Protein backbone atom coordinates (compact mmCIF):
# COMPACT_ATOMS: atom_id res chain seq x y z
CA UNK A 1 0.00 0.00 0.00
CA UNK A 2 1.42 3.38 -0.95
CA UNK A 3 1.95 6.13 1.60
CA UNK A 4 -0.64 8.15 -0.23
CA UNK A 5 -3.47 5.63 -0.07
CA UNK A 6 -2.49 4.79 3.49
CA UNK A 7 -2.98 8.40 4.54
CA UNK A 8 -6.30 8.46 2.70
CA UNK A 9 -7.23 5.36 4.68
CA UNK A 10 -6.50 7.27 7.87
CA UNK A 11 -8.71 10.11 6.68
CA UNK A 12 -11.47 7.58 6.10
CA UNK A 13 -11.29 5.95 9.45
CA UNK A 14 -10.87 9.26 11.27
CA UNK A 15 -14.09 10.52 9.71
CA UNK A 16 -15.97 7.27 10.17
CA UNK A 17 -16.96 8.41 13.67
CA UNK A 18 -19.99 10.77 13.66
CA UNK A 19 -18.74 12.79 16.63
CA UNK A 20 -15.43 13.39 14.87
CA UNK A 21 -17.30 14.68 11.86
CA UNK A 22 -19.11 17.10 14.15
CA UNK A 23 -15.71 18.20 15.54
CA UNK A 24 -14.55 18.81 11.95
CA UNK A 25 -17.69 20.82 11.22
CA UNK A 26 -17.24 22.91 14.35
CA UNK A 27 -13.62 23.64 13.46
CA UNK A 28 -14.63 24.53 9.91
CA UNK A 29 -17.24 26.95 11.24
CA UNK A 30 -15.06 28.55 13.92
CA UNK A 31 -11.68 28.56 12.18
CA UNK A 32 -10.01 27.34 15.36
CA UNK A 33 -11.04 26.20 18.82
CA UNK A 34 -9.65 24.78 22.04
CA UNK A 35 -10.67 21.37 23.33
CA UNK A 36 -12.66 23.07 26.08
CA UNK A 37 -14.58 25.20 23.60
CA UNK A 38 -15.39 22.13 21.52
CA UNK A 39 -16.47 20.12 24.56
CA UNK A 40 -18.86 22.92 25.52
CA UNK A 41 -20.70 22.41 22.24
CA UNK A 42 -20.76 18.63 22.29
CA UNK A 43 -22.54 16.19 24.59
CA UNK A 44 -19.22 14.58 25.51
CA UNK A 45 -16.41 15.09 28.00
CA UNK A 46 -13.26 17.14 27.46
CA UNK A 47 -11.33 13.83 27.47
CA UNK A 48 -13.47 12.39 24.67
CA UNK A 49 -12.92 15.54 22.62
CA UNK A 50 -9.16 15.22 23.17
CA UNK A 51 -9.28 11.64 21.85
CA UNK A 52 -11.18 12.73 18.75
CA UNK A 53 -8.73 15.57 18.13
CA UNK A 54 -5.85 13.10 18.47
CA UNK A 55 -7.37 10.78 15.84
CA UNK A 56 -8.04 13.68 13.49
CA UNK A 57 -4.48 14.97 13.96
CA UNK A 58 -3.01 11.53 13.18
CA UNK A 59 -5.04 11.48 9.96
CA UNK A 60 -3.57 14.87 9.06
CA UNK A 61 -6.94 16.62 9.19
CA UNK A 62 -6.29 18.78 12.23
CA UNK A 63 -3.24 20.65 13.50
CA UNK A 64 -2.64 22.22 16.89
CA UNK A 65 -0.75 25.29 18.06
CA UNK A 66 -0.03 26.36 21.62
CA UNK A 67 -1.12 29.86 22.47
CA UNK A 68 -0.05 30.65 26.03
CA UNK A 69 -1.63 28.07 28.30
CA UNK A 70 -4.11 26.75 25.80
CA UNK A 71 -3.83 24.61 22.70
CA UNK A 72 -5.87 25.69 19.73
CA UNK A 73 -6.89 23.31 16.97
CA UNK A 74 -7.65 24.08 13.37
CA UNK A 75 -8.33 22.12 10.18
CA UNK A 76 -5.28 21.63 7.99
CA UNK A 77 -5.63 23.04 4.50
CA UNK A 78 -4.51 19.71 2.97
CA UNK A 79 -6.89 16.88 2.18
CA UNK A 80 -10.24 18.58 2.68
CA UNK A 81 -9.35 21.75 0.83
CA UNK A 82 -7.97 19.71 -2.07
CA UNK A 83 -11.18 17.72 -2.21
CA UNK A 84 -13.33 20.84 -2.19
CA UNK A 85 -11.23 22.50 -4.87
CA UNK A 86 -11.63 19.45 -7.07
CA UNK A 87 -15.40 19.47 -6.75
CA UNK A 88 -15.71 23.17 -7.33
CA UNK A 89 -13.49 23.21 -10.42
CA UNK A 90 -14.92 20.07 -12.06
CA UNK A 91 -18.45 21.30 -11.37
CA UNK A 92 -17.65 24.71 -12.87
CA UNK A 93 -16.14 23.06 -15.96
CA UNK A 94 -19.35 21.15 -16.63
CA UNK A 95 -21.55 24.18 -15.95
CA UNK A 96 -19.59 26.02 -18.61
CA UNK A 97 -19.55 23.15 -21.11
CA UNK A 98 -23.27 22.46 -20.76
CA UNK A 99 -24.07 26.14 -21.23
CA UNK A 100 -22.03 26.06 -24.46
CA UNK A 101 -23.82 22.86 -25.55
CA UNK A 102 -27.15 24.61 -25.02
CA UNK A 103 -25.98 27.58 -27.07
CA UNK A 104 -24.64 25.33 -29.83
CA UNK A 105 -27.89 23.33 -30.12
CA UNK A 106 -29.91 26.54 -30.12
CA UNK A 107 -27.82 27.94 -32.95
CA UNK A 108 -28.14 24.66 -34.91
CA UNK A 109 -31.88 24.23 -34.30
Amino acid sequence: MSARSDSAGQVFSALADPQRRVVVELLAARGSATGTELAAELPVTRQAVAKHLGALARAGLVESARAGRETRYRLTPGPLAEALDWMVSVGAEWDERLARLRGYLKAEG
Partner: protein
Amino acid sequence: MQPFGCGSEEHVRVVREIELPSPPDEVWQALTDPERLEEWFATEVELDAEPGGRGVFRWSNGEERHAVVEEVVPERRFAFVWGEEGDPSSAEGSRRVSIELEEIDAGTRVTVTEAPTAGWGTALALHALLQSACVGA
Protein backbone atom coordinates in the same frame (compact mmCIF):
# COMPACT_ATOMS: atom_id res chain seq x y z
CA MET B 1 -32.11 12.83 -5.49
CA GLN B 2 -29.64 13.38 -2.71
CA PRO B 3 -26.65 15.59 -3.42
CA PHE B 4 -23.40 13.70 -3.97
CA GLY B 5 -25.16 10.34 -3.66
CA CYS B 6 -25.23 10.19 0.11
CA GLY B 7 -25.69 6.64 1.30
CA SER B 8 -24.67 5.10 -2.00
CA GLU B 9 -21.38 3.40 -2.78
CA GLU B 10 -20.35 6.16 -5.12
CA HIS B 11 -19.86 9.17 -2.88
CA VAL B 12 -17.15 10.80 -4.88
CA ARG B 13 -18.62 12.57 -7.83
CA VAL B 14 -19.80 15.76 -9.40
CA VAL B 15 -23.24 15.63 -11.01
CA ARG B 16 -24.74 18.18 -13.37
CA GLU B 17 -28.13 18.04 -15.03
CA ILE B 18 -29.50 20.15 -17.85
CA GLU B 19 -32.70 20.09 -19.91
CA LEU B 20 -32.19 20.89 -23.57
CA PRO B 21 -34.95 21.78 -26.04
CA SER B 22 -33.58 19.35 -28.67
CA PRO B 23 -34.48 15.71 -29.33
CA PRO B 24 -32.10 12.98 -28.03
CA ASP B 25 -30.72 12.14 -31.50
CA GLU B 26 -29.49 15.72 -31.99
CA VAL B 27 -28.02 15.88 -28.51
CA TRP B 28 -26.35 12.52 -29.07
CA GLN B 29 -24.73 13.77 -32.27
CA ALA B 30 -23.50 16.91 -30.50
CA LEU B 31 -21.95 14.74 -27.78
CA THR B 32 -20.29 12.05 -29.88
CA ASP B 33 -19.51 13.44 -33.33
CA PRO B 34 -15.99 14.96 -33.38
CA GLU B 35 -16.91 17.72 -35.83
CA ARG B 36 -19.88 18.77 -33.73
CA LEU B 37 -17.81 18.52 -30.54
CA GLU B 38 -15.37 21.00 -32.04
CA GLU B 39 -18.23 23.49 -32.20
CA TRP B 40 -18.78 23.63 -28.46
CA PHE B 41 -16.62 21.25 -26.44
CA ALA B 42 -13.00 21.63 -27.44
CA THR B 43 -10.92 23.26 -30.15
CA GLU B 44 -9.71 20.00 -31.66
CA VAL B 45 -11.43 16.66 -31.17
CA GLU B 46 -10.52 13.16 -32.23
CA LEU B 47 -13.00 10.59 -31.05
CA ASP B 48 -13.87 7.03 -31.89
CA ALA B 49 -17.21 6.76 -30.10
CA GLU B 50 -17.20 2.99 -29.65
CA PRO B 51 -16.37 0.89 -26.60
CA GLY B 52 -12.58 0.84 -26.36
CA GLY B 53 -12.31 3.74 -28.78
CA ARG B 54 -9.80 6.53 -28.14
CA GLY B 55 -10.39 10.21 -27.86
CA VAL B 56 -8.17 13.30 -27.75
CA PHE B 57 -9.49 16.74 -26.80
CA ARG B 58 -7.36 19.86 -27.22
CA TRP B 59 -8.16 23.38 -26.18
CA SER B 60 -6.73 26.65 -27.44
CA ASN B 61 -5.08 27.31 -24.06
CA GLY B 62 -2.86 24.26 -24.59
CA GLU B 63 -4.86 21.96 -22.36
CA GLU B 64 -5.17 18.41 -23.63
CA ARG B 65 -7.11 15.37 -22.42
CA HIS B 66 -6.99 11.77 -23.53
CA ALA B 67 -9.99 9.50 -23.25
CA VAL B 68 -10.92 5.85 -23.61
CA VAL B 69 -14.56 5.17 -24.40
CA GLU B 70 -16.20 2.66 -22.08
CA GLU B 71 -19.87 2.53 -22.92
CA VAL B 72 -21.99 3.57 -25.89
CA VAL B 73 -25.76 3.17 -25.91
CA PRO B 74 -26.92 5.43 -28.75
CA GLU B 75 -29.15 8.29 -27.62
CA ARG B 76 -29.07 6.96 -24.05
CA ARG B 77 -25.64 6.68 -22.48
CA PHE B 78 -22.05 7.62 -23.28
CA ALA B 79 -19.28 6.87 -20.80
CA PHE B 80 -15.53 7.34 -20.96
CA VAL B 81 -12.46 7.61 -18.77
CA TRP B 82 -10.24 10.61 -19.31
CA GLY B 83 -7.15 12.23 -17.91
CA GLU B 84 -4.53 14.84 -18.53
CA GLU B 85 -1.63 12.56 -19.34
CA GLY B 86 -0.77 8.95 -20.07
CA ASP B 87 -3.22 6.14 -20.61
CA PRO B 88 -6.42 7.25 -18.90
CA SER B 89 -7.37 3.62 -18.18
CA SER B 90 -4.55 3.35 -15.68
CA ALA B 91 -3.14 6.82 -15.02
CA GLU B 92 -3.46 8.35 -11.59
CA GLY B 93 -5.80 11.31 -11.68
CA SER B 94 -8.10 9.82 -14.31
CA ARG B 95 -11.80 10.43 -14.06
CA ARG B 96 -14.81 8.54 -15.30
CA VAL B 97 -17.43 10.61 -17.08
CA SER B 98 -20.88 9.23 -17.81
CA ILE B 99 -23.44 11.15 -19.76
CA GLU B 100 -27.05 9.98 -19.63
CA LEU B 101 -29.73 11.18 -22.04
CA GLU B 102 -33.40 10.93 -21.27
CA GLU B 103 -36.19 11.99 -23.61
CA ILE B 104 -38.60 14.42 -21.98
CA ASP B 105 -41.57 16.40 -23.33
CA ALA B 106 -39.44 19.52 -23.69
CA GLY B 107 -36.57 17.71 -25.41
CA THR B 108 -33.75 15.90 -23.64
CA ARG B 109 -32.55 15.77 -20.07
CA VAL B 110 -28.76 15.32 -19.91
CA THR B 111 -27.10 14.17 -16.72
CA VAL B 112 -23.33 14.30 -16.51
CA THR B 113 -21.45 12.52 -13.74
CA GLU B 114 -17.71 12.87 -13.29
CA ALA B 115 -15.91 10.83 -10.66
CA PRO B 116 -12.26 10.07 -9.98
CA THR B 117 -11.37 6.49 -10.87
CA ALA B 118 -10.35 4.22 -8.01
CA GLY B 119 -6.92 4.50 -6.50
CA TRP B 120 -6.68 8.25 -6.46
CA GLY B 121 -5.73 9.69 -3.09
CA THR B 122 -7.84 12.77 -3.61
CA ALA B 123 -10.80 10.58 -4.44
CA LEU B 124 -10.55 8.92 -1.09
CA ALA B 125 -10.24 12.23 0.70
CA LEU B 126 -13.29 13.40 -1.21
CA HIS B 127 -15.13 10.29 -0.22
CA ALA B 128 -14.40 11.04 3.41
CA LEU B 129 -15.44 14.64 2.99
CA LEU B 130 -18.72 13.71 1.37
CA GLN B 131 -19.45 11.17 4.05
CA SER B 132 -19.01 13.98 6.51
CA ALA B 133 -21.39 16.10 4.40
CA CYS B 134 -23.91 13.26 4.64
CA VAL B 135 -24.16 13.45 8.45
CA GLY B 136 -27.78 13.33 9.37
CA ALA B 137 -28.86 12.66 5.77
